[in-house]
């Protein structure tokens, strides 16, 4: 893989924006962010109204959307129009600024995380040295958004959902970060591009198939932990209790409609893809892969994670809130500490 500069620099080189100084830099950054954002939103747009239905339908032996356009792909447009044209109903007692901001916070926080993800072919908005820490930091802002939504809706179900979301995120953020830290120990850096680069060597050569040193292969235990914690982080079965339709109707988003609902819906999917991007970057070699260009491999990997979340939804019951907290604090936290210490010891002894 070719080492390439972050996307804004590529843009400024291409368009000769350097001569405009700070303004040029800003413009280049904006262009890069626009490109990455479009890429992410495109993925969620396909995922939300169309792929999710298709995937769920195939797990449940149904046909699902196929009326509009080839394979029902037109549903994406139809659904967006439908959702956006609905009446925006705001509860009388809603806590206004918070109520309006919550969807933005949720969707925005997840989008921000993509800024530092290397997507291959040099598509990366920024590559700061604290990249990983930054992703975890912005991703966890989402729980603030959920709490705001839950609290400001002035609905008891929303309130419960918001509280559940916070309790859940608290319990699973720590194992997530700790497991991520074990990768940092391997890679010796927090910089995302370096983490990807550290996974490019060949571990084993089996005939024509080269098994790379992806951390998911080096440390499958950490990989499994991260995937589980990530499921909880994005709120999918068996950890979808902040929404839990059969218990608290729709949790924090019960009172949201129209555009706000779209933002929530979008935010959720962006979150799943951010989780996928993290898993891909930390454990699956980022955009690495044979033959196809990096961005294609990256897309395949995040979609594989998305598919996995839907698969888990079809087969796994949701756990109860107290069990969830118990699994988080007593199970995953301990395991992730053990993983961290073991990794540190092994790396220290072997000296990778």
């Amino acid at each position: 893989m070719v080492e390439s500069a972050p996307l804004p620099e590529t843009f400024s080189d291409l368009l000769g924006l350097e001569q405009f100084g700070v303004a040029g830099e800003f413009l280049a950054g904006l262009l890069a962010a626009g490109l990455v954002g479009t890429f992410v939103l495109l993925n969620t747009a396909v995922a939300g109204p169309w792929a999710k239905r298709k995937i769920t339908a195939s797990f449940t032996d149904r046909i699902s959307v196929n009326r509009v356009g080839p394979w029902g792909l037109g549903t994406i447009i139809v659904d967006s129009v439908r959702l956006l044209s609905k009446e925006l109903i705001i509860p009388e007692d809603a806590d206004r600024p918070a109520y309006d901001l919550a969807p933005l916070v949720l969707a925005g926080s997840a989008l921000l995380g993509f800024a530092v993800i290397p997507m291959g072919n040099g598509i990366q908005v920024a590559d700061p040295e604290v990249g990983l820490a930054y992703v975890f930091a912005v991703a966890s802002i989402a729980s603030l958004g959920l709490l705001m939504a839950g609290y400001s809706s002035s609905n008891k179900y929303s309130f419960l959902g918001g509280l559940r979301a916070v309790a859940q995120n608290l319990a699973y953020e720590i194992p997530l970060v700790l497991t991520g830290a074990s990768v940092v120990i391997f890679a010796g850096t927090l910089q995302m591009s370096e983490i990807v680069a550290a996974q490019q060597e060949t571990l084993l050569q089996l005939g024509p198939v080269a098994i790379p040193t992806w951390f998911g292969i080096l440390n499958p235990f950490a990989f499994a932990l991260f995937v589980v914690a990530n499921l909880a982080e994005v709120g999918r079965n068996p950890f979808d209790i902040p929404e839990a339709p059969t218990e608290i109707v729709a949790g924090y988003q019960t009172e949201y409609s129209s555009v706000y609902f779209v933002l929530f819906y979008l935010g959720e999917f962006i979150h799943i893809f951010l989780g996928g991007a993290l898993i891909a970057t930390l454990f699956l070699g980022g955009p690495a892969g044979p033959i196809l260009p990096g961005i294609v491999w990256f897309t395949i990997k995040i979609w594989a994670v998305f598919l996995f979340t839907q698969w888990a939804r079809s087969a796994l019951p949701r756990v109860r809130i107290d069990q969830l907290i118990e699994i988080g604090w007593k199970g995953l936290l301990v395991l992730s500490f053990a993983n961290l210490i073991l990794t540190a010891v092994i790396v220290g002894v072997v000296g990778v």
Partner: protein
Amino acid sequence: MSLEKPVPDAPDEVGVTEDGLDYDALEELVSEHVIDRESHVNAEALVIRPDAVQDTLSALKEEAGFDHCSAVTAQEYEDRYESIYHLKKFDDPTQQLSVVVPANKDEPVSESAESVYRTADWHEREAYDLVGIEYDDHPDLRRILLPETWQGHPMGKDYNQNQPQVVPLREHVNPLAEDHSAGEDSDTMFVNIGPHHPATHGVLHVKTVLDGEQIADIDPDIGYLHRNEEQMCEQSTYRHQIMPYPDRWDYTPGGILNEWAYARAAESMADIEVPEYAQVLRTMSAELTRIAAHMLALGTFGLDVYGDFNAIFMYAVRDREAVQNILEDLTGQRLMFNYFRLGGVSWDVPEPREEFFEKIREFLDGLPEYIEEYHNLITENEIFQLRCIDTGILPPEVAKNYGATGPVLRGSGVDYDLRRDDPYGYYDELDWNVVTEDGCDNYSRVLVRMREVEESAKIIRQCVDLLEDWPEDDREIQANVPRTLRPEADKEVYEAVEGAKGELGIYMRSDGTDKPARFKIRSPCFSNLQTLPEMSEGEYIPDMVASLGSLDIVLGEVDR
């Protein structure tokens, strides 16, 4: 023969003799309260003083072993009101006794039986609501099916159908004005779960007080689907018009099982003998509906515990669909069968018979594989076990006291199944088992249903074999029943069958016309739902939802 009920270690119960109940001994037991004796078709009835209900019933419960208060029927005569407590024994439901409590016409008050049988709570509230008898000593005598603003008691004789039935809130105590919060410094939160909520399986309203995520207090509020089916049946003729209605009580579809409840009561009242061939057809079709109903119960329970993207619901519906296709071939409809007639069934199996039998066999042969799949998907899933084992506990004694029946009771380890204990149809000739589980939790109730599907499959297979070999000139599907059925006046009968949800009983009183004078439905869901507070108080909301799912209520049958 697998159908032998384990013999209980012969308790010393008053009135039990070698050949049935000795009603004289029972009368002797409570003689100081008895004022008269009646003879109902199914059992003898003791008429007692309205102020001695608790004494009488507790004596009968403690000393004569009548531990099952199946139903409470209230009705109004020209000169009096009457409440009938239909008593049975869980050990042997053929031993029945009715306790009739007359009440004054002007001031209908009688003592409540709630302290003896917990199940009488809701039954008496229903009697108060619809007929207007007031029960002394009742802990919570409110309307149950009708809204609180309803005027009058619709099944009373002097009820004026033309007056406005619901008055505006301003003319009545406003139920919304009640402040549900327990003050400013309270830690609890009041939440209305339902009437429109993804987990209530219909329009059920559960008033819940939450302490954090735990349930501090819970009160199911029913009646949103109430249509007074009892009155509708009272306005229909015995012979044909009532039969389509039972399909609509339990539409999951328990239809044929419900039809059987009415058929059994009416046949017992009019003394109609059903041909054996028709009995086999009835048994087979009834068990098919049981499979369909249990499949839906399983699927919706999956929805409750898994969330709305799970695969179980669709798989269960797929299998239910197979049953419904068979039933459609047989009865002509997929849900509202109207298959039974008094004295038989409306149709023989469709021609060509072999093809039909082949279709059933094909389904039965595929069933073990499906069930294996459900076990893989549901019962062996660790998270499912985590969620369902030891949640929603219903101890057997509590279940009995609440009159819970069907899979709910069998999931609490009580061996009670009317198909075996009070045999009807062709069940006692066939080889099958009553399924019980001792867990008393949500998991056992689900497991009981899954295992019952297997037992039903066994029954169906035997019925198909029987039907196939039945001599052609002996295929009588209906007995000779008069076109208009007019049972003699003042016959009273209470008969129950094992419906998909439990004991479905029908009480009927004739007045010499071709329509019943009183028609009372003892709905199993109604009694089962009463146990919800017992199961879920102190538990988490998700467990309450799971318990509700494992009770498998159908609101059409709860509200009737």
